[in-house]
C-alpha cells in the first residue's frame, strides 16, 4: 500500500500551477507515475499532496513553431516514438524512445517526468542535450525558458522550484546534413536502465567538414553532461580516425564514473570510450555517404 496523500486533480494547466503554488513545498506533480509511484511506495519521496498533471491537454502536443520543434511535457515516450516530426527533426530523441524501458512503460512515462526526476541515467536527456533543447518552466502567472544544460544541479536535483512545472521542451530544427544518434548499453535488451548512454550530433558544412557538433553522456556523472572539449575537437575538422580518437578521449576524461549495481566504474569508463567512438565512426561513415551523394 502506498503512504497516504491528498490528490489534487486540476483540469487545466493554470489550475495545476495554482495548486502547486498553494501547497508548495509539500506538493509534487504526478505525471505517468513510473518513477513517483515506486518512490512513494519505497518511501524515497513523501509529499503530502500530489498534483495530478497526467493527461492535461495543455501538456499534450508535439508541433512546429517557427524554427522550433516544441512538445508539451506531458508527451509520453510512446508519443515520441510515433511522432513523424520528431523522426524528421530529432532522430536522436526518437532513438532513445525506441530503447526506453518497454512498451508498457513508454505508454505512461512522460518526457516531463523523465526530466523532472533528474536521474543521471535519464534517457531523454543526452539526446535533448545534443539538440540544445530548452525547457519551459512555468509557475502561476510566470514562465521562463532555460537551457537544458543549466537545468540539472545534482542527482535528482534541478533548478525547477516547488511552485514550477516543466510545461514544454523545444529545440531548433537542425540544419540539413545533420547526423544525430543515441546509443545505450544495458544489461539486457529491454526494461533496463542505461549503464552508459551517449548521444552525438554532427552537422556537416559544404566542404564535408564538421561545422557543428555536440556530444552528451548519461550515467557517468551526477547529471547527464555535455562534453564541450570533445565538440571543440570536432568542429571545423573532417572526421578522421585521429580526430575521433581525440574527441573520444575528452569524453572519457569528462566522465566521472562510479561503480554501482549495474557496473563497476572501470567498465563504465571502457563503455564510454567504446560507445562514443562507435557513434563518431558512424557519423564518419554517414558523412562519406553524404559526400558521395552530393
Amino acid at each position, binding site marked *: 500500500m502506498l503512504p497516504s496523500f491528498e490528490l489534487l486533480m486540476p483540469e487545466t494547466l493554470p489550475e495545476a500551477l495554482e495548486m502547486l503554488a498553494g501547497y508548495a513545498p509539500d506538493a509534487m506533480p504526478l505525471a505517468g507515475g513510473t518513477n513517483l509511484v515506486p518512490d512513494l511506495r519505497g518511501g524515497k519521496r513523501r509529499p503530502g499532496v500530489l498534483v495530478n498533471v497526467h493527461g492535461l491537454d495543455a501538456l499534450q502536443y508535439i508541433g512546429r513553431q517557427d524554427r522550433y520543434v516544441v512538445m508539451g511535457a506531458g508527451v509520453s515516450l510512446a508519443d515520441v516514438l510515433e511522432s513523424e516530426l520528431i523522426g524528421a527533426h530529432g532522430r536522436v530523441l526518437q532513438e532513445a524512445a525506441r530503447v526506453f524501458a518497454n512498451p508498457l*512503460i513508454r505508454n505512461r512515462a512522460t518526457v516531463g517526468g523523465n526530466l523532472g526526476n533528474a536521474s543521471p541515467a535519464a534517457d531523454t536527456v543526452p539526446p535533448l542535450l545534443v539538440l540544445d533543447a530548452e525547457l519551459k518552466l512555468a509557475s502561476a502567472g510566470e514562465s521562463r525558458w532555460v537551457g537544458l544544460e543549466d537545468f540539472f544541479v545534482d542527482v535528482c536535483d534541478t533548478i525547477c522550484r516547488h511552485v514550477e512545472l516543466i510545461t514544454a521542451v523545444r529545440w531548433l530544427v537542425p540544419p540539413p546534413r545533420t547526423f544525430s544518434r543515441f546509443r545505450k548499453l544495458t544489461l539486457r535488451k529491454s526494461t533496463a536502465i542505461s549503464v552508459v548512454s551517449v548521444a552525438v550530433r554532427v552537422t556537416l558544412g559544404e566542404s564535408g567538414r564538421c561545422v557543428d557538433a555536440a556530444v552528451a553522456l548519461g550515467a557517468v556523472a551526477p547529471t547527464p553532461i555535455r562534453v564541450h572539449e570533445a565538440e571543440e575537437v570536432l568542429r571545423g575538422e573532417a572526421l578522421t580516425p585521429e580526430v575521433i580518437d581525440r574527441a573520444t578521449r575528452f569524453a572519457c576524461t569528462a566522465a566521472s564514473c562510479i561503480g554501482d549495481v549495474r557496473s563497476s566504474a572501470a567498465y563504465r569508463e571502457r563503455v564510454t570510450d567504446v560507445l562514443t567512438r562507435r557513434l563518431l565512426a558512424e557519423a564518419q561513415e554517414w558523412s562519406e555517404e553524404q559526400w558521395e551523394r552530393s
Partner: protein
Amino acid sequence: MSLDWLGPGRVPVTLNVNGREVEVTIEPRRTLLSVLREELGLTGTKEGCDEGNCGACTVLVDGRTVYACLVLAVDCSGRCVRTVEGLRRAENLHPVQEAFVDQDAFQCGFCTSGQIVSAVSLLEQNPKPHRGDIERAMAGNLCRCGAYPNIVAAVLEAARLEEAPDAKD
C-alpha cells in the same frame, strides 16, 4: 462530487471496467491493481512485483497497455479499463486465450493474464506481427518459468486464427 480535491480519506470514484460502469469508494493512494483485485474481485490481473517490473498486472487503459500497479485508480476515472476478464467474446475465449491453451504457453500461469493482455494489444495494432515484433511488444512481460518460446508461438497462432478462423487444426 467534483474531482478536483481528493483524500487522503475515501472518495467515491466511477470507473469503466470491461464496458461496465462501477462505483467504488477508495482512498486516492489505491492503485488500479489493488482496486481491480480487492474492490472489484477481478483477480485475473495479478500482483507480481507491485513496482512496475514484471507485467503480471498488465491491463488496457484507453486501449493502451499499462502496469496497473503504477497507476492510481482515481486517475482512471473517465477512462476505459479492460482486463483479462473482459477479453472473452460472448461465450468463447479470445483467440489469443485459445492459442495460449493450444500452444501450452505457460507453466505456473502467474504471468499469463498479463502476457495475454499485451498480446491482444499487439494484435489490435499489428494483426500480422513477426517474431521480432512480438518479442519487442511483449518485452515488459516477464515469465519466470521461461515459457517464452511457446508464448511467441501462441501469439503467432492467434494472429493466424484471427486472419482465418477456420485454419485451426
